[in-house]
């Protein structure tokens, strides 16, 4: 495992950074929020990203993808994270798309992945429930056999990117295990109710009231989805840490700019040693995050035995560091950092949501210890 960007990756990161700087500054997130945009992201921009080949990065070439991995996705997501871009990578590509890629039949993959990669279809993975907390396999929704198919019932919460999605991948208890089922979002009995969280990203309650699906809706074996869910959530977690890395790096840059320009007591406040030392600590934490995220992405891509541990390492660190960075940023901005008018609050809110998505720091420390056998 080499913790350095290849030349191709450097180019990709540079392209993504330029694109994000031009098309996806944080001001766009504010505009989407203030306009109460129903899906909270730009379909146009999503199509452009698809044209650039980013949406299909992890998928096979025959499915319109680039056949690359998390290392490359992280390059893109980090760049987009700088401006808190809300486009549906997590829900559509890293969760739902990845689940289809990993467990779908050739027919299912051929049916959906090219349309996801092209940006024509947005999919979402509905797994989390009110009682799940952070365990993706604590599921009470049911899939009861009905004829040759299944009847799905239950309620999912905070389903990422579900508002306006065309396709839902639904996790439900089936026999002794968990199954994943492809459900059209306009199927009878499906209700998608938007949820407004502090970051105003796309998320929804998905209510399933006796939704009938046919035999070929099952993604893989209808009771073997538990392990798959864990693997897919790990995959998405690495993507999320990439995004968090970009967000915290940018929040820290904004803080440094403020420290250099804001004057009090006839000196830039960045000249005060107490703030300097705290800024140095934030810097160190971000650097450690970067190493952990790069290692996790490469380990998952390589199918390394240590991959799950490194995912938890990256998610635990980024969760803590993103909040630290944002909290210190607000404190160092002072009063204006508390105002909606300044952008830094957007980073704080997103840091909180990201920390509590796919398991918070405590959850991942617990998981690390379990995986290491103590």
């Amino acid at each position, binding site marked *: 495992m080499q913790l350095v960007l290849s030349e191709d990756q450097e180019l990709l990161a540079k392209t993504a950074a330029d694109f994000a700087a031009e098309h996806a500054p944080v001001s766009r997130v504010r505009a989407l929020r203030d306009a109460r945009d129903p899906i909270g992201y730009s379909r146009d921009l999503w199509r452009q990203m698809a044209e650039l080949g980013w949406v299909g990065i992890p998928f096979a070439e025959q499915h319109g993808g680039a056949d690359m991995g998390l290392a490359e996705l992280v390059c893109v997501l980090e760049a987009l994270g700088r401006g808190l871009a809300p486009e549906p990578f997590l829900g559509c590509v890293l969760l739902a798309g990845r689940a289809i890629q990993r467990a779908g039949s050739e027919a299912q993959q051929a049916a959906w992945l090219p349309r996801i990669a092209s940006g024509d279809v947005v999919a979402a993975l509905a797994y989390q429930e009110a009682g799940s907390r952070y365990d993706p396999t604590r599921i009470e929704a049911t899939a009861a056999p009905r004829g040759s198919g299944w009847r799905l019932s239950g309620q999912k919460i905070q389903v990422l990117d579900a508002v306006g999605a065309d396709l839902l991948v639904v996790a439900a208890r089936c026999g002794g295990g968990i199954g994943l089922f492809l459900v059209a979002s306009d199927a009878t009995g499906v209700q998608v109710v*938007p949820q407004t969280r502090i970051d105003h990203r796309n998320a929804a309650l998905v209510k399933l009231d006796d939704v009938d699906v046919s035999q070929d809706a099952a993604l893989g074996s209808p009771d073997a989805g538990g392990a798959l869910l864990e693997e897919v959530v790990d995959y998405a977690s690495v993507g999320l840490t990439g995004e968090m890395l970009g967000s915290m790096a940018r929040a820290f840059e904004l803080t440094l700019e403020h420290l250099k320009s804001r004057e009090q007591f006839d000196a830039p406040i960045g000249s005060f040693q*107490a703030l300097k030392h705290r800024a140095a600590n934030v810097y160190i934490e971000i650097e450690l995050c970067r190493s952990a995220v790069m290692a996790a992405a490469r380990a998952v891509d390589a199918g390394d035995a240590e991959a799950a541990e490194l995912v938890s390492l990256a998610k635990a660190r980024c969760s803590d560091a993103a909040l630290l960075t944002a909290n210190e940023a607000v*404190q160092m901005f002072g009063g204006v*950092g*508390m105002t*909606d*008018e300044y952008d830094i609050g957007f980073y704080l809110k997103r840091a909180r949501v990201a920390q509590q998505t796919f398991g*918070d720091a405590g959850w991942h420390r617990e998981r690390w210890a379990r995986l290491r056998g103590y």
Partner: protein
Amino acid sequence: MADIAEFRADTRAWLEQNCPPGLVGRGSNPLEGVWGGRKWTFSDPDRKRWLERMAERGWTAPSWPREYGGGGLSPAEAKVLAQEMRSLRIPPALIGFGLTMIGPTLLQFGDEEQKREHLPRIGRGEIRWCQGYSEPGAGSDLASLQTRALREGDEFVVTGQKIWTSYADQCDWIFALVRTKADGKKQEGITFLLIDMDSPGVSVSPILLISGSSPFCETHFDGVRVPVRNVLGTIDGGWTVAKALLGHERSMIADAFGSAGGASSRRGLPDVARDHLGEDQGRIADPRVRDRVVQAEMDARAFMLTVQRTRDAAKAGHQPGPESSIFKVYGTELNMRRHELLVEILGPQGLGWEGEGFDDFERELTRDWLRSRGNSIEGGTSEIQRNIIAKHVLGLPD
């Protein structure tokens, strides 16, 4: 001591007779508090009646002299009144910056005319006050303020901008620091002015915070004419008055964080943790969270004991010193840590802004957490408080 016992009995009887029954047992909830002022509307006629009766007796400001509308109570008597109100869980009749900040400062620095003009109106809840200290360019470095007041005969003409004026949109008067002399040391040449916000040229716009609330405003002064007799203290000598008032502000903040604030403090940390994480043999199920709950609870207990110790020392005649800075810094930071922990305990339910999928408690708590991030900034940042401790308590050099 016999007198005090008698006073206690009388007080209790009076409270029981005069407090509207609907308020007995309601307790002190700052969100329901009566702030008064010309723009105030009472949510409940009981609250209005209660304010009138208490104001008549001078007990909205129990320890102020009677001639200024206060109750004229001794410290011991004032304590008894507070105890009896607490014991009956009767809410205060009136709260606000008039009682806690400008009132005590007027008593200390005001001339007779000023005291007679302002204090009774504060005690009766007729005038609501706000604070005009900070400016966009003068936050921690308050003394660098630029709002200027030019003397024209018996008036000052005030021009400039204040920020973080709490609830200025609902206030009647503002106490403001203005610059009356441009040269010399920046702490000199500042004057403490009392300004009627109905004066022409005053305009106010609320500031939206990240929590979605707007407790603060920007207040602009555009050639506002203020009579010279509205100077508190001396012209160019306002810094002394300003610092004294900051002392009152800090002790008010310490009181607030010693007791109340937001959804989170209305339910104990251990209860919230048990509800959201479950129990394991009577213990909060997640041992990590449990340990952090324990630490927060123990920190709170030690903090409250320290507040008590300072009060006990004051009662024993020891003068409180700059060490009260620790209440501001520790109280607010503890409150912030508690809110961080609460939101983490709520897990995915700690992320709600509005609408479906979150209940009232969860949404309120999430916004309380966002609001709490400002605790270590407003009223003098934690950095400033630590500077004060280092310099004035520990004697470390500049």
